[in-house]
């Protein structure tokens, strides 16, 4: 359970090597060392992250799943909760994909939709059931400003985030009466490995800034968090622009 000042005891990161997911975990930890459950593909990178967190003093459990393989989703959630109550679940996995292939190659489109939408939604359903059973908990979901008004340049990705965002925004309402909180985080351009080599967009932030916003939102009871905060106004304006104008924006 999240205590009176917002400290937690056990955190599940779906997407255990995600830079933003780990930054959220570290921000949540503060000076304490909550237990961490890292869920991800069984890679060297996942083991290295686990070793790093253990060196910092966390108890770490590893749970393996592959966002492209549906058969691994439910067992991963089950295993993550078998070790005890989870106070916060961070849904942090996702891919950018190849924007041009994603709207021309059906396999690419399907993979992007599966990893970014079907998997987090399916696992979210399982997670929600378990949080209801334990009577407490919170979800932090990494959405994206890209889902607010998908652009020509990466609309397949944007569409998955739009769907994800809509699902978790609705889930938030469904879980509200049960005292379970869902915080939807909408970052703009985040400088991470995933975006390495891409030209940084205006208002770019790093993973820790996103985590800081997410955790302060979680602790103060906010439901939607933008990173950086002015992103909300940018998104608001972008949504209102008529298509001919929007089309000509250099973003």
């Amino acid at each position, binding site marked *: 359970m999240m*205590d*009176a*000042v*917002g*400290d937690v005891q056990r955190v599940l990161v779906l997407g255990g090597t995600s830079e933003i997911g780990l930054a959220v975990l570290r921000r949540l930890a503060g000076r304490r060392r909550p237990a961490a459950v890292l869920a991800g593909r069984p890679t060297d990178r996942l083991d290295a992250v686990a070793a790093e967190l253990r060196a910092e003093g966390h108890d770490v459990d590893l749970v393996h799943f592959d966002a492209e393989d549906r058969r691994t989703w439910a067992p991963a959630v089950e295993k993550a909760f078998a070790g005890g109550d989870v106070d916060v679940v961070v849904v942090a996995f996702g891919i950018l994909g190849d924007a041009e292939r994603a709207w021309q190659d059906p396999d690419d489109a399907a993979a992007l939709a599966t990893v970014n939408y079907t998997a987090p939604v399916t696992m979210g359903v399982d997670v929600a059931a378990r949080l209801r059973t334990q009577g*407490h908990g919170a979800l932090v979901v990494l959405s994206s400003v890209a889902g607010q008004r998908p652009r020509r340049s990466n609309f397949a990705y944007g569409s998955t985030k739009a769907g994800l965002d809509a699902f978790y925004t609705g889930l938030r309402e469904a879980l509200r009466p049960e005292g379970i909180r869902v915080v939807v985080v909408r970052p703009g351009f985040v400088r991470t490995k995933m975006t390495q080599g891409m030209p940084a967009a205006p208002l770019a932030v790093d993973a820790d800034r996103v985590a800081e916003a997410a955790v302060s939102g979680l602790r*103060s009871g906010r439901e939607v968090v933008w990173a950086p905060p002015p992103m909300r106004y940018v998104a608001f304006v972008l949504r209102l622009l008529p298509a001919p104008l929007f089309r000509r924006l250099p973003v």
Partner: protein
Amino acid sequence: MAPVTSTRRLLAGWGQTSPTVAEFVAATSESDVRATVEDAGPRGVLARGLGRSYGDSAQNGGGTVLDMTGLSRILSIDATTGEVTAEAGVSLDTLVRVLLPLGLFVPVLPGTRQVTLGGAIAADIHGKNHHVEGSFGNHVAAMDLLLADGSVRSLTPQTEPELFWATVGGMGLTGVVLRATLVAKPVESAYFLVDTERTRDLDDLMARLQANDDEYTYSVAWIDLVARGASTGRAVLTRGWSARADQLPRRLRSRPLHFAPRTRLTAPALFPSGLLNKATIAAFNEAFYRRAPREERGAVQGIGQFFHPLDAVANWNRVYGPRGFLQYQFVMPFGAEDAMRTAVERLSAAGTASFLAVLKRFGPGNPGLLSFPTPGWTLALDIPVTPELGRLLDDLDDLVLSAGGRLYLAKDSRTTAEALHRMYPRIDEWRRVRDRVDPHRVFTSDQAKRLSL
């Protein structure tokens, strides 16, 4: 037997900080309690009284919570010995009202009368008379405890000392107290003779308490934590005795045991939300300090005025707004006055908007294995939750630990299992007793999970 019905309910402590959902069962009989305990699912069951513990002591997320307030009958009163037997859900408020006309008084009263007999035992609560009369458990002659297997054990400190003293202060984790016998104390009136002193600072306060506290039955000091610099820790010290009938002014003498608390206002009317901030608190504290006489002897005060100045305002916990607040209470042993001073300085320097803090001298503790009071100084204060608070209190925990002190479970909502276990050296003994009567942890709470009790 009819199945006991339950509803899913979001439950929190008095500070409103970490609500969780549980199956809520309003028990009205022993068989309701037994059926609920026997039906408990994997997430266990917990008794709840009036929910006046501040943190997560009286909640059990995902499990079952037994509302005990429906078991509130007074079963017998022996006016000569003062022995009162009642069901555990009765409030101390009811007991005070029923006992006073008989010339009896509840032996230990906390800062609110709105707590149950069961909650008073489970937290082994203390009052203003701890330094001379001890905590609640010292005045319990017997109790019936329903165990995890559904059986009922009658406990007295003589016949079952282990389980008795594991249950006193045991935060509901050994079983459900069904009924208990309390030894009330004789009084001649419903009034108190009160001496009030204003102290310059903390040292002045502690010196006065050391000098002659034991001459008074009741003693407590209200510290103004907003005051800084030379007046850090300035306080209003109020101490007194239960008044004899012949000490009352004429107009009260005809009905010395009369007790009629005023109707309660609700908090929102007094404090529109958002009104509570550093400026209003500073003004409140200043007024409280200035209004108190510099020195006054033998003033006659009623129970409400003397014990429960805040009870006149129902739901005053809401004034802190939707983010809730917590109470931080610790005790440090005699000899740790420097650490005490450091704690007060840190709290006032941090500028956490807080109403008055309460400081008191504790007398000897009792055999309760998890009982909070130990000889020394205790400080309690309400603090609204702010983002920096966790860190400030973690640091204070370290200070309390290094001074050999401890935190109070009935107030805690945020410390760590590691710190708490170090603060309670007899916790392993307590766990052995608990494991014997409840090996499968049928009784559990959010706090028990958080602190690995």
